[in-house]
């Protein structure tokens, strides 16, 4: 095989005076930032949607169901292009102009990825709440809790514990999905990967390094949530059978 291995190219200077490993580090930074920010958006919105879908109010359930159907059945890259190139044309002109000119584009990317992931989180949260016995809600109500208080103090704390393994894999997925934001101009890890290949054609080395980066990101997230799982574990209670891997 006449492939020319060269691990040292990472320390070579690039056109902009940085080294190639600087590009990777900067990409890693953007990937982490976009992923974590999207995860926050997704957790908040996904929880609200998940709760809505378990209430006795039919219109709230319908609204939550419609959201999940919509955002799960359109590819992520198409959703991002909709937010960047279609929505600004459909909203009133001054808002559209503001979206195109003043709103930092990474905000749109974060919101886009967050809204996409929220649909998945909503599914998990709903499943978690529905796995609790009806009696838990009754017990809360019988003590004088409002419907909202039964969620706040009784149902959600248990639901989150139950779906933590599933949430862990969603949180690990978001790093991978964030790679798609390169298509709307986010200079994250995959963007840098593509750029370095174009400049150096050291495909194999950079593929190995970037793969390891994604591996490490997913692994760190996994450990953090395993720690959360251990800290929130309830003595004497067996929740599910599968731990995080």
């Amino acid at each position, binding site marked *: 095989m006449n492939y020319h291995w060269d691990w040292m190219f990472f320390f070579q200077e690039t056109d902009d005076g940085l080294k190639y490993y600087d590009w990777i580090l900067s990409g890693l930074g953007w990937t982490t930032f976009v992923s974590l920010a999207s995860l926050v958006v997704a957790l908040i919105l996904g929880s609200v949607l998940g709760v809505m879908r378990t209430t006795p109010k039919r219109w709230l359930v319908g609204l939550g169901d419609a959201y999940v159907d919509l955002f799960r059945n359109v590819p992520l890259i198409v959703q991002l292009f909709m937010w960047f190139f279609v929505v600004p044309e459909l909203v009133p002109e001054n808002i559209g102009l503001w979206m195109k000119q003043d709103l930092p584009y990474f905000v749109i990317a974060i919101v886009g990825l967050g809204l996409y992931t929220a649909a998945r989180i909503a599914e998990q949260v709903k499943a978690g709440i529905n796995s609790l016995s009806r009696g838990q809600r009754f017990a809360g109500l*019988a003590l004088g809790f409002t419907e909202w208080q039964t969620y706040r103090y009784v149902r959600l704390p248990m639901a989150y514990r139950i779906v933590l393994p599933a949430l862990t894999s969603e949180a690990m997925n978001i790093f991978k999905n964030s790679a798609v934001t390169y298509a709307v101009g986010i200079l994250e890890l995959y963007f840098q990967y593509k750029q370095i290949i174009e400049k150096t054609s050291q495909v194999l080395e950079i593929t190995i390094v970037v793969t390891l980066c994604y591996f490490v990101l997913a692994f760190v997230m996994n450990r953090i949530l395993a720690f959360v799982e251990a800290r929130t574990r309830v003595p004497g209670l067996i929740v599910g059978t599968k731990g995080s891997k």
Partner: protein
Amino acid sequence: MIEINNVSKWYGSFQVLTDCTTQVSKSEVVVVCGPSGSGKSTLIKCVNALEPFQQGSIVVNGIAVQDPKTDLPKLRAKVGMVFQNFELFPHMTITDNLAIAQIKVLGRSRDEAVDKGLKLLDRVGLKAQAAKFPGQLSGGQQQRVAIARALAMDPICMLFDEPTSALDPEMINEVLDVMVQLAHEGMTMMCVTHEMGFARKVANRVIFMDRGAIVEDAAKEDFFGQPRSERAQAFLAKILNH
């Protein structure tokens, strides 16, 4: 204290309660019994509006529960309820289980709530378990905690929905003992239960339900002496020879 007037309830087209009328006066203990599926659990859940009903009225301490203007959380906070499956909150310690509603619903301070909770825990004989979680207690212990949790709200009456049905036989008495003690202290109680020994000991009246209707509503002595309806006789014969 509790007035149930002509209550009927349907699930879709299936009628689960038919024209139920009865009442529980202050300091009275009323036992509701009947075969499974007779609607007794549904009826008791209607009393604090955990289950909605379509016809009739229920008035608790002068407040109509079916009235849309009624502040249900406020009403329910005054009506204690104990469930078949205990329904302690599994993610909280026993202390927190006892305190949470006092703090969040009644607005008591944490110290006050914990203090009150621990006193009641002592009363049901479980003071040593305060720091544990529900999953670490036996069924009988959990149910005693559940009773203490309801009492911590200073209820004006207590509803028991088959409190011993999910328990192993050797644990039934420890729960019944607490209930008997409560009855002797003059608590107003409505109990769905098959424990006829308990009924004989403390009940003032016994209600027998079948197929969603109140078939018999009699003083304890009359009920056990000579039930009027054949269905109640058959039920008693079955349960007492058990």
